[in-house]
């Protein structure tokens, strides 16, 4: 357990280094453009360089970037001139809520669909589930998002177009509005999660169904339901946890697109805005935050794996 944590820390340090190198070597450095501007005198240029610490040797600059990152201090945004971390903390709960609820929807739907698909392999039901899963992960999130907008907003007028970030839940009516505006972003991500998880659950169940312990469970007189839920499902879910962890970067990628389409004010939208306005501090900070999230969720999955499978021990 401690070893896992100890691997996560250098990973993040190396990612911080990678982000630093990327920014330092990029040809389109906004500060570089400023410093090369003819209208700025030599003294001003040096002063700018000194203010931002650009006159120091690279190693020292990386060290100060690293220590700042460790304190989660990413400086101020070029655009709003407020601390970057404040902007991120404001947006992060929205992203985590959408991603989290979508994942729960995915798990709740995928386990029963996967079980039925595996136990009734090659049935009409299985064919439908397979077709659904295929469509679900072949349709990229930006397509499902656009399609949902066409159907539910412009076709049926059921759901609002853009997400209203000023909406505060005070009573039942505003709660209803909040649910209405969250449905589409969650559905888009949830559909993708469900599709992938269904395939995983089905494949793992099929691996386990012909094994000896299943026959033993059946022959000792256990009901079929008990065999499937108590034995096969429990064992099948263990590898599914790892596969879920491997898919986490994709899920956050999907969140970026979903937030852009439905204008959910999460960190994905913040990233797109910061890139299109050239707000480097915010973009760099978000790269690091996304990496922290991915590493953290991988860690959680690893630990969960050990909890689910007592044969695995992290010394």
């Amino acid at each position, binding site marked *: 357990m401690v070893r896992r944590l100890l691997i996560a820390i250098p990973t993040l340090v190396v990612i911080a280094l990678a982000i630093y190198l990327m920014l330092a070597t990029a040809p*389109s450095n906004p500060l570089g453009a400023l410093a090369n501007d003819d209208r700025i005198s030599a003294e001003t240029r040096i002063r700018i360089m000194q203010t931002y610490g650009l006159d120091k040797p690279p190693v020292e600059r990386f060290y100060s970037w690293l220590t700042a990152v460790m304190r989660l201090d990413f400086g101020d945004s070029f655009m709003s001139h407020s601390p970057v971390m404040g902007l991120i903390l404001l947006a992060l709960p929205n992203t985590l809520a959408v991603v989290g609820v979508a994942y729960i929807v995915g798990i709740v739907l995928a386990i029963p669909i996967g079980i039925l698909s595996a136990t009734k392999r090659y049935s009409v039901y299985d064919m439908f589930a397979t077709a659904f899963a295929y469509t679900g992960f072949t349709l990229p999130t930006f397509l499902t998002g*656009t399609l949902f907008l066409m159907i539910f907003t412009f076709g049926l007028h059921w759901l609002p177009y853009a997400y209203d970030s000023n909406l505060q839940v005070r009573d039942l009516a505003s709660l209803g509005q909040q649910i209405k505006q969250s449905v589409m972003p969650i559905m888009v991500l949830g559909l993708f999660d469900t599709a992938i998880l269904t395939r995983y659950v089905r494949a793992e169940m099929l691996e386990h169904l012909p094994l000896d312990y299943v026959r033993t469970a059946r022959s000792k007189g256990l009901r079929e339901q008990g065999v499937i839920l108590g034995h096969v499902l429990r064992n099948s879910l263990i590898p599914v946890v790892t596969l879920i962890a491997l898919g986490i*970067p994709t899920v956050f990628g999907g969140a970026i697109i979903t937030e852009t389409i439905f204008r959910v004010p999460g960190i994905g939208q913040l990233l797109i805005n910061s890139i299109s306005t050239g707000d480097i501090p915010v973009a760099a900070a978000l790269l690091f935050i996304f990496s922290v999230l991915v590493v953290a969720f991988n860690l959680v999955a690893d630990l969960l794996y050990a909890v689910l499978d007592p044969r695995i021990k992290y010394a």
Partner: protein
Amino acid sequence: MATTEAPLAVTAAAAAAFNRPARSLWADTWFHFRRHRLAMAGVIILTLIVLGVIVGPLLWTVPIDVYDFAERMKGPSLAHPFGTDDNGRDLLARIIFGGKISLAVGVAAVALAISLGTFVGSLAGYFGRLDNPLMRVTDLFLSLPVLPFLLVITFLFRQGIESTLGLELGAFVVIVTVIAGLTWMPVARLVRASFLSLKQKEFVEAARAVGDPDMRIIVRHILPNVLSPVLVAATIGVGGAIITESTLSFLGLGFPPDFPTWGRVLFEAKDDLDLAPHWALFPGLAIFLTVLSINFIGDGLRDALDPRRVS
């Protein structure tokens, strides 16, 4: 073969199968691939799309950038089979043009990713000393959030490269390199795993015994055995790369506005979904059909190349 273990089960059909002329690996793969209905449907759809993109510009000679404000956001008609966009430009011509870029990006990015992944994977799998450091690097890349990095790297580096290589080629090179640079890891792992088991096999020992150098053993003896899983990964990777490029363009951060890739057309269409649904529908359908048919082909290949397959 199962026939030696169960002689009683040998029927006339099995005997006929046993006596048939020998097939090469590829003829055998094709034999099984042909029976995979979805994969064959995929081949047909993809062939049509590729043909459309290559031959299309010869048959449909409407230019992609002629503004016609009298024909703004018109639905499909005889003059414009896919309709027009908000500047009255013909969507069929734009989608044909965009398809060429989207497909080229997909194939080029995968070719690069496969080469890189195979290179890293064979070194890590063959040379024990390199295994740990190379796999740490691979794991590190695997824990990167791909899309955010893709967006930021493309943004940071495209200006510099576009100014040296030109707008179109510059964007192409940046996008292909970045997609490949962030997607080679699964291939590296796959190749390494196969190398680890294959290098213990007798045929490698035999090659070493006759004095083959490491390089020759890797390229001539082990790599051909890794080909089939890599081929499957490559096929499915093309679909993934097309989606990634479309995503970049859909977010407005991919190809410049003059290059209507499928994602770019969708990006332009997304603010007028209520007025011109056809504008988003056709590029969306193009992406969906292409990726779906590529995935089916990948699945068919996987089944056809699987040596444990029961026919």
